[in-house]
């Protein structure tokens, strides 16, 4: 089977720091691929490189077998790739609904919308409220709150809700549950499984091994800027995965990248 999203030989340097060091990456249709690795291993750099948020110094990216040259995250989004960045990418002073619909706002029906180009706020707020409720983020009291006034976890919840609502081909989640509570994290995992059931493949970066082993179909282990190996969670224990990613153990031949 052909990977839906593929990175080959990706290199990204920042001054003296090499964040990606000839790294490969494959995501297959319909799967949940987890990416794990130490802090600073280059996971975020990897997904930024395949989602247009940075342009790699070297290497190629393929979407459904065709070479793509994303110049901006918008390009990737138009191609159907929706990403939750670790920094969340929200406009702090704007409201929850404004952020969720940024760049794809809904307009009022009829004259108001087509000529006066008026936004359909009630509708956007309704949908935003609905998506947040799906995630169990019930503590948000005021849907018009500016994002900067939300708690850390609430903010992350909004970002995840946005990606889940709009992704069509690939959804990439960079540590989506880091700041979330127990209940909210579970909802995100359920959501990930939902999305998979809709046939959309997912990239999940996470430091939470139980979560990773619960939902992932394959696990990409990232170390020192490149893919160390890919393992199947059914064949390996969490201890193996941790040992591999921290360098306590060498990968077996057949899995090595």
């Amino acid at each position, binding site marked *: 089977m052909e990977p839906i999203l593929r990175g080959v030989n990706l290199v990204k340097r920042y001054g003296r720091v090499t964040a990606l060091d000839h790294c490969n990456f494959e995501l297959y249709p319909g799967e949940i691929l987890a990416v794990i690795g130490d802090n600073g291993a280059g996971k975020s750099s990897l997904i930024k490189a395949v989602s247009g*948020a940075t342009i790699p110094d070297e290497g190629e990216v393929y979407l459904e077998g065709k070479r793509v040259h994303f110049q*901006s*995250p*918008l390009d990737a*989004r138009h191609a159907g790739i929706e*990403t939750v*960045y670790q*920094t*969340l*990418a*929200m*406009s*702090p*002073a*704007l409201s929850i609904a*404004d*952020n969720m619909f*940024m*760049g*794809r*706002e809904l*307009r009022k029906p009829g004259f108001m919308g087509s000529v*006066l*180009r*008026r*936004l359909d*706020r009630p509708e956007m707020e309704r949908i935003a409220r609905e998506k947040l*409720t799906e995630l*169990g983020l*019930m*503590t*948000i*009291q005021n849907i018009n709150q500016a994002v900067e006034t939300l708690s850390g976890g609430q903010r992350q919840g909004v970002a995840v809700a*946005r990606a889940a609502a709009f992704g069509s081909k690939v959804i990439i989640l960079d540590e989506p549950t880091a700041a979330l509570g*127990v*209940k909210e*994290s*579970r909802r995100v995992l359920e959501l990930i499984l939902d999305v998979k059931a809709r046939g959309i493949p997912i990239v999940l970066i996470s430091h939470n091994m*139980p*979560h990773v*082993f*619960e939902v992932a179909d394959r696990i990409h282990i990232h170390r020192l800027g490149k893919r160390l190996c890919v393992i199947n*969670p*059914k064949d*390996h*224990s*969490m201890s193996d995965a941790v040992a591999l990613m921290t360098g306590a153990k060498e990968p077996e031949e057949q899995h090595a990248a």
Partner: protein
Amino acid sequence: MSEGSANSQDYETVVKAGTAEKVAEFGGGPVSALKRIQHMLHKAPSMVPLIVLVMSIVIFGILLGSKFFSPFALTLILQQVAIVGIVGAAQSLVILTAGIDLSVGAIMVLSSVVMGQFAFRYGIPVEVAVGCGLLCGVLCGYINGWLVAVMKLPPFIVTLGMWQIVLATNFLYSANETIRSQDIDSQAPLLHFFGRTLSIGADEAGRGGATFTYGVIFMVCLVLLLAYVLRETAWGRHVYAVGDDPEAAELSGVQIRKVLISVYVLSGLICAFAGWVLIGRIGSVSPTSGQLSNIESITAVVIGGISLFGGRGSILGMLFGALIVGVFTLGLRLLGADAQWTYLLIGVLIIAAVAVDQWIRKVSV
């Protein structure tokens, strides 16, 4: 699934049982009238400069009586503020994107000179000449926008450079020639369009009473229109997002280049309109006008509560900010302060106005 996960996460299963979920509501204390005002101020931040404005009108009204608190004096302030208000609208847009436009005054003057010279020097029909002037503003704005958005140069430098370039072009092109009001009246009255007035309650000779020039009406309509666009359209939200955090805006799919270019182009166009209004106000076409427009418009924007760091504030606030300065200027002159003292006191009052504004905001968090 592998070992561990099933039982390690079992404590999480309880959340699936869940309780009836509803949006959390914390115990709110009794809501006093004061609290309600505070909340209103919080929701509509442009109310704060409005309060300062009303307060200053009331104070000068008490001090000066009907000399100040008359339709004539109050509409006079509107007339004096019209240019700053229009240019301030352009400035607000740019500042909302975390930029700054030092070239507003220069673009305004060059556009007015183009309108005048095209009509008089080349004898082009005045409607076309006005169109050319507006186009000139758009062009200058486009160059600013392109340099900021595509070349990624700091707006301060870009518009500082443009200021000098446009101003010098203006003097070189116009050869410093003034076109007189009388000639305009007889040959190209359209240039005076925004100088026409609508008087209400004047005496027979047309004195006293409230006088609104078309320029004033244009300013008010423009600000209301922009307030609508900024609040109620996608483009408006994008302007705020770009100013708030350009990186986040880009990552969340805003086409920052397009937004920035459109903002500067619009700013140029509004400045060109300001140039047209300027002809109406001063009667003649004069290349030496508008030298302080940039600082005055930025002042109005900041007093109105728009953050120079972008992304926060409302354009209505800018209008109130401009009016606050206008009220102080006229009020102090009427109180008999001489020019130097007025200048000094306006400095004090600008600081005081913003201090009051800040204080009201703090109370109303």
